[in-house]
């Protein structure tokens, strides 16, 4: 597959994630959109990984080029998981206090 396809797909997903972050007020959905952005990144990384592998393997049959990107994806997932645990804890804490997950509801800090 031409790498451009993957780039466009990932960028599209990433932008949709950004759009979601910008248009939604529900903290959980916003957070989910961020996860969507991360997934777009992951996809692109894997695609790049295979691209570089494809280039490298022409020279060296036993190359591990590209493995690093896939491991990076792995780490991203790790971090995402950790972030989710903290993030959801924060959202739940907020919900306990104000019974809402509206990000605009808490608006004391400004100017």
């Amino acid at each position: 597959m031409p790498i451009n396809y993957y780039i466009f797909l990932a960028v599209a997903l990433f932008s949709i994630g950004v759009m979601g972050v910008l248009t939604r007020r529900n903290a959980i959905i916003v957070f989910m959109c961020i996860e969507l952005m991360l997934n777009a990144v992951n996809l692109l990384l894997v695609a790049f990984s295979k691209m570089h592998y494809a280039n490298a393997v022409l020279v060296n049959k036993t190359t591990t080029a590209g493995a690093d990107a896939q491991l990076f994806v792995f780490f991203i997932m790790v971090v995402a998981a950790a972030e989710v645990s903290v993030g959801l804890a924060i959202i739940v804490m907020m919900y306990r206090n104000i019974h809402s997950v509206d990000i605009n509801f808490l608006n004391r800090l400004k100017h």
Partner: protein
Amino acid sequence: MNAIILSAVWGIVMMYSGVVLKKKSSAKYVAIIGIVMLIIVNWLEFAGLSFFPVETKGMLQFNSFGLLFNTVAFVSTLIYFILSGADMEQVGNNVYDYFALIFFVLCGVAVVSAFQSLLMLFIGIEIISIPLYILAGSDKKNLKSNEASLKYFLMGSFSTGLMLMGITLIYGSMGSFYMSSMNIGLGPLSPVMALGIVLMMVSMAFKASAAPFHFWTPDVYDGSPTVFTSFMATIVKAAVFIAFLRLFENAFGKMHGQWQLLAAIITAVTLIIGNVTAVFQQSVKRMLAYSSIAQAGFMMLAIFAMNGMGKQGLILYTAAYSLATIGMFAVLIKMKDYTFDGFNGLGKHEPVLALTCTIFLLSLAGIPLTAGFFAKYYMLVAAVKTGQMFWLVITGIICAAISVYYYFRVIQSMYFKESPDPGITVSKSFKTVLVATAVMIILLGIRPGLLLNFLNV
């Protein structure tokens, strides 16, 4: 490596000592022991004695720059613990956990001051960020704290997304995460690489609270419990700048000309927004938040200039800025009223506090004989030395003049306005450490070499 491991271990020690030691007030002492050890082992590594011969596979590299910064960060943390450690007990029941989280952050600090691979940068930044989300929200019943935490978290995650996109694009272009393998060529950038660099710059600017990605800063600093604001605004921010510099020097240093304009724009906008907005603030805490943005603008000059002068200056700047801001926050925590008027008459009732505060503020404003002067001096020299974009230097000095306005408002309140005794009680040791900090600032202001001579660049 010493510091990374010890700080992680000591984080765990803190957690468990919470179980063993029931008294809240003991936490501070355990933490102080830890940080002192951290300083020592870091120093030993500086001296060439590494306890853990871990093969990093080129992921980390401990050079004098990073280690010196670690020292600055750890010493600042020590002062922070002594001055404000006890105030953490006010925030909630989990004081041991707070300390543990701070040690984890320090682990992250040590990682980002030594990273050689974008992966380590990413992990390090996340290790720093995640505990901070929690610390920001640690005052659970306080809606402001909640809000700060949520905002910080959402925006932080978003910027992580941007950073990952940047890393991915860079990887796509370069096929590696190692900085050493990117720093090539002077020719025009490929669009992929260019976008990657922009995204890296945006996300680092976000973490460093540089405008226009700074919006979380005032709200989060204002909403978080003041003790943690102090930590976030100083050591963490300094570490982010070190990472910023490290990244752009080692990874993109040879393409300096390609992104210098963007760095200049960010610097200028940060300076203007930080300084100008701080002028109108009514709360000292919020003013300090904006001031941290303003100071970030000056530190950005080092990124913009990207030369030896800027590098040395950044270390000095972080030291000067951290010490002064920690001191300011330590005093601020003791105040009952965070507005400017809350400081009225402090010069009369608490002369030592007022005097040290004055020194901190003078340092922040960059008045000679304080470390802040040389910090700014190095930044300006670095910027002038580039010989380009002189308007940025002019913006810098105009903003430095504006900054005097809001820093001196505090001094005015303390010395020239009257108010009944606010009844602040501070211990002798608090004052002693405060004075010691002030003395350090002045010593650095007379001889910046005391710090910079350790840097063998």
